[in-house]
């Protein structure tokens, strides 16, 4: 099957800065994919190359099999991008912007879909407002609507929830999820790792222009995640044999990180043997934030 997005050995250099260092990725049709990485990792640069806003110094990209340079018109037809920057055109109303955007994609009469987009994004009563008068969150929604006017099979959202309130985030994701269920491929970047964890089936982590992890969310959590146990002990001391598991301690509170849940048995047994009581216990499942920090913390192996 033709991949929704194929990125092969892409390099990008800005003067002295080597922003992308041989990135290769494949996103299959229908996937919900996250591109994660700290600020400056090169996520936006990669998206810009994919969208034709910038050119790769080396390497190739294709969207639904259309090369973004040689076959740029078809590549752009199948791609919808929500840019990271909160841009708008002060001259026009929301509806005007959406009509223009439809026209640029060759769609003459698109009002039914535009109305549906406005409805789904909670913009119906702002349709005739000038875009400059909208709040930041509203402007973000307009950007999403603009990216979707041509019903692109592949949708890329670059930090769509940055600076957006919780309620809007929920409704935005509900909408994007529905698009994904309808068969659209979704790629997103976000700093809210719990969003990526709940939404995305696969994740790529980028650091200093290199992909340092690429796997299903499940595998990443299983292979790099640790179960955290917080214990309040009485008396407040930890048996010697549990020391290697200790991640932090404060008064009578001890945090242990376990490779597997099974190790809980060992902990209990050791405490019982040492005659230490547990006043309080809290077990937390491995989360993506911990995995992310762990992976990012490792030094990069250079080629």
């Amino acid at each position, binding site marked *: 099957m033709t991949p929704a997005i194929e990125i092969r050995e892409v390099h990008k250099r800005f003067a002295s800065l080597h922003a992308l260092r041989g990135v290769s990725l494949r996103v299959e049709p229908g996937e919900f994919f996250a591109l994660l990485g700290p600020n400056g990792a090169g996520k936006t640069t990669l998206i810009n190359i994919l*969208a*034709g*806003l*910038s*050119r790769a110094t080396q390497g190739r990209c294709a969207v639904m099999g259309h090369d973004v340079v040689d076959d*740029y*018109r*078809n590549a*752009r*037809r199948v*791609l919808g*991008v929500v*840019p990271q*920057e909160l*841009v*708008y*055109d*002060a*001259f*026009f109303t929301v509806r*005007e*912007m959406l*009509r*223009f*955007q*439809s*026209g*640029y*994609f*060759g*769609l*003459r009469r698109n009002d039914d879909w535009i109305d549906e987009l406005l409805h789904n994004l909670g913009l119906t009563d702002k349709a005739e407002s000038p875009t400059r008068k909208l709040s930041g969150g509203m402007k973000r929604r307009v950007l999403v609507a*603009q*990216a979707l006017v*041509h019903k692109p099979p592949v949708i890329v959202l670059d930090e769509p929830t940055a600076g957006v309130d919780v309620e809007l985030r929920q409704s935005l994701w509900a909408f994007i999820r529905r698009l994904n269920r309808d068969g659209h491929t979704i790629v997103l970047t976000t700093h809210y790792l719990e969003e990526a964890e709940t939404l995305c089936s696969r994740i790529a982590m980028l650091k200093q222009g290199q992909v340092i992890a690429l796997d299903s969310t499940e595998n990443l959590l299983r292979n790099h995640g640790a179960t955290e146990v917080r214990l309040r002990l009485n008396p407040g001391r930890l048996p010697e044999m549990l020391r290697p598991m200790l991640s932090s301690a404060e008064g009578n509170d001890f945090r242990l990180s376990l490779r597997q849940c099974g190790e809980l048995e060992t902990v209990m047994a050791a405490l019982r043997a040492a005659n230490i009581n547990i006043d309080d216990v809290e077990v937390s499942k491995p989360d993506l934030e911990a995995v992310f920090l762990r992976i990012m913390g490792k030094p990069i192996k250079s080629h």
Partner: protein
Amino acid sequence: MSGLWTLFYKEILRFWKVSLQTILSPLVTTLLYLLIFSHVLEAHVQVYPGVGYASFLIPGLVMMAMLQNAFANSSSSLIQSKMAGNIVFLLLPPLAYWEFFAAYVAAAVVRGLVVGLGVGLAGLWFVPLTLAHPLWMALFALAGCAMLGAAGIITALWAGSYDQMAAVQNFVIMPLTFLSGVFYSIHSLPPFWQALSRYNPFFYLIDGFRYGFFGVSDVSPALGLSIVGTCFLALSLATLALLKSGYKLRN
């Protein structure tokens, strides 16, 4: 085609929404020139036999207004989009670079013609005007607006700030228009300046445009139009090449 048409329509709507600035204000400025210069010079200057100075002046002012406004339209629209970042709305869709070019130039032509027509009609109210060769007049009007529309695109592509934009407008476009014979015939200039004026493409635009009104010109209109046409072609090719390469837009 629908992409081109939409962009053209958007560009028209853009200047129409701020017509106080984009149409009325240049109209008033140009009419002030007309009032002041014709009042001061009417009794002293006669360039063509039988043509009063005010009548002589009007076509020049109309052309000057058209050139400046055509330039202002494409250049300010594009630089604003670049600075505000909303240029991405044009870079993400499958618009071809020639559609981009054609839409901006066409909108610049419309703005130039609207302002020119306004100045011309207002001028008629002061002095009668003849139209000896309407077709020549129209051709020079179109060529002038299109040429400056393309020049506006190049300038806005190159400029990295509003300051740089304004510099081109004030140090290139304005002097070229003022020194092209709007207010005088170049025959009244010393030989050196006369020779220099012949390197100014705006001179041929004004001279040919005036020919459309009075049937008299310094240079034959056919020669003028070929020179102007060549300039337009060269500017267009340069603009298209820049747009195709993505110069300062796609990086």
